[in-house]
């Protein structure tokens, strides 16, 4: 670990005694800037109140005198400061050989024990203000954790060192060496140029759709009601959506870099808020390759993935197909992209008249793959090793046409469905898929990938 910074001191606070036979574990505190992270909350509440009832606010403000305002501030500010300080004072974290412990709570004590071998990923994110203050947020993705289990904020250097240590321990390095391993060096695989990103957003229907809605709806409302407040109330969320879809995505996906290192794929991204994320090897449940209609001429694709216990979904916002596939091959080792997908039988047109043409399916040694969509196409891949259960369903209408659906359930709550296969083929598939997922698991790398 780096030498303890201003937050490293735990003077006056004895470390928690372990169960008999275990050495006591040193507890650490978050960065002292943490109490200020919620400083905006009262302002937001006041602003929300103001938005909600503008006339009432004006009336209230008129009645307030300067003295009352000052007394209010004199009471509120120290109270908020005290609360911030106490909640910071009561938050500790400690890394043991097998788990990360986070102790929080002023009145209601809460201790989260996060098992290191279950850690899916550790991400460092630096929001704009945190970048100014030189601190970072550490989010630990584990199956079954919630938003509270993040360490915000840590000193920037400490966050990186802790992240490296957690990943090294999760990977199975011995505790003594885990601290010295440091962050594994990364090799850059892909960098999205700003021009390509901007163009890809311009070629996305959602950008134009939300922009159009933001322009049309307030205009129509103004013409029909002539009420400024109605127009504002409708326009603000729409403009917000349009901004998030266009500018927001550009800002958050700016300078998207995917690198490869021993502890998984690295994603660095963001113009204002920088994020540093990791996708550990072997934790990816499903991969989707999305191909919007307008991107097809340029052979661009977006790659999304699902990691159990993690909300992150985008691996590559936009990239040429060949390059994207080479990155996917790193995420799913030993997987080759299925080249020949089989169509559904012609009689499927009686079940879903137009869309049946879009349904494709393939199975290779390593993945179960389906493609759907006529205009924008989505290719879903599930490695056999990640299949949790296989289901075959057949409704009465499908039975009449001797068709059936095969569902493959992966972790992270995702199901990939091969729709409208021939009934006999589907029954065969059900048996074979169960067999494949079993053998696929046997060959899968171990959870602690450095020990395998």
């Amino acid at each position: 670990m780096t030498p303890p910074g201003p937050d490293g001191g735990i003077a006056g606070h004895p470390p928690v005694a372990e169960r008999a036979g275990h050495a006591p574990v040193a507890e650490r505190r978050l960065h002292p800037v943490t109490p200020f992270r919620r400083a905006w909350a009262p302002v937001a509440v006041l602003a929300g109140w103001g938005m909600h009832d503008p006339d009432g606010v004006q009336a209230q403000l008129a009645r307030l005198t300067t003295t009352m305002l000052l007394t209010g501030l004199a009471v509120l500010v120290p109270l908020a400061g005290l609360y911030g300080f106490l909640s910071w004072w009561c938050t500790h974290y400690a890394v043991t050989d097998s788990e990360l412990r986070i102790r929080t709570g002023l009145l209601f004590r809460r201790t989260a024990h996060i098992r290191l071998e279950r850690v899916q990923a550790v991400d460092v994110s630096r929001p704009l203000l945190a970048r100014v203050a030189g601190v970072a947020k550490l989010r630990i993705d584990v199956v079954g954790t919630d938003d509270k289990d993040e360490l915000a904020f840590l000193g920037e250097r400490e966050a990186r060192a802790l992240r490296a240590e957690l990943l090294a321990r999760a990977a199975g390095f011995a505790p003594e060496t885990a601290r010295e391993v440091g962050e594994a060096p990364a090799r850059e695989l892909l960098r999205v140029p700003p021009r390509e990103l901007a163009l890809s957003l311009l070629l996305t229907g959602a950008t134009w759709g939300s922009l159009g809605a933001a322009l049309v709806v307030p205009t129509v409302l103004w013409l029909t009601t002539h009420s400024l407040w109605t127009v504002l109330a409708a326009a603000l969320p729409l403009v917000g959506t349009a901004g998030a879809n266009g500018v927001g995505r550009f800002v958050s996906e700016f300078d998207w870099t995917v690198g490869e290192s021993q502890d998984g794929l690295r994603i660095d991204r963001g113009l204002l808020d920088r994020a540093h994320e990791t996708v550990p090897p072997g934790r990816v449940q499903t991969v989707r390759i999305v191909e919007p209609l307008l991107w097809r001429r340029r052979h661009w694709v977006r790659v999304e993935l699902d990691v159990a216990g993690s909300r992150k979904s985008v691996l590559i916002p936009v990239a040429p197909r060949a390059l994207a596939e080479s990155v996917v091959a790193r995420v799913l080792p030993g997987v080759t992209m299925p080249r020949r997908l089989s169509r559904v039988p012609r009689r499927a047109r009686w079940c879903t008249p137009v869309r049946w043409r879009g349904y494709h399916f393939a199975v290779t040694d390593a993945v179960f793959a389906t493609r759907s969509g006529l205009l924008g196409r989505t290719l879903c891949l599930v490695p056999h090793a990640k299949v949790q259960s296989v289901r075959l369903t057949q409704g009465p209408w499908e039975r009449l046409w001797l068709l059936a659906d095969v569902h493959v359930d992966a972790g992270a709550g995702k199901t990939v469905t091969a729709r409208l296969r021939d009934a006999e083929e589907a029954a065969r598939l059900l048996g074979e898929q169960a067999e494949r997922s079993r053998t696929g698991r046997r060959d899968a790398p171990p959870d602690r990938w450095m020990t395998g």
Partner: protein
Amino acid sequence: MPGDELEWRGLRPALVRVRRLLLVVWAVVFAAGAGVPLGLLVGPAWAAVALLPVALAAWGWRLVPRNWRSWRYAERADDLLISRGVLWHEETVVPYGRMQLVEVTSGPLERRFGLATVQLHTAAAATDATIPGLDPAEAERLRDRLTELGEARSAGL
């Protein structure tokens, strides 16, 4: 085709009795709830609406055994197979190594008729592997065997 050489097991006949009992109870509740207010407030002829739940229940009375016959499960060497449904047929395969939790439940009505339900959970929320209407002893045997096999063949996420 899976299942030709398998040892399929069915559910206990008592499940038909439980389901028919529930059917009758609900039919009476709905018939009374619809027929009595309508007959008193609108006119006696409207009380005939109460025949609708009764007719549906009569139809359901015949469907229950058909559905019961369609439910079956088989323990294979490495996975559990559950097959069910007449019109909407569904077959589920859950590899033992994927099971996170096996649950045996038995409500008051189920206990009265000597039944229990086994439910399997995997890491995928979509996995819907439930076997109702088992003999409690069989349910426990199944649970123990599944847990034992699950441990032996356990695989991570």
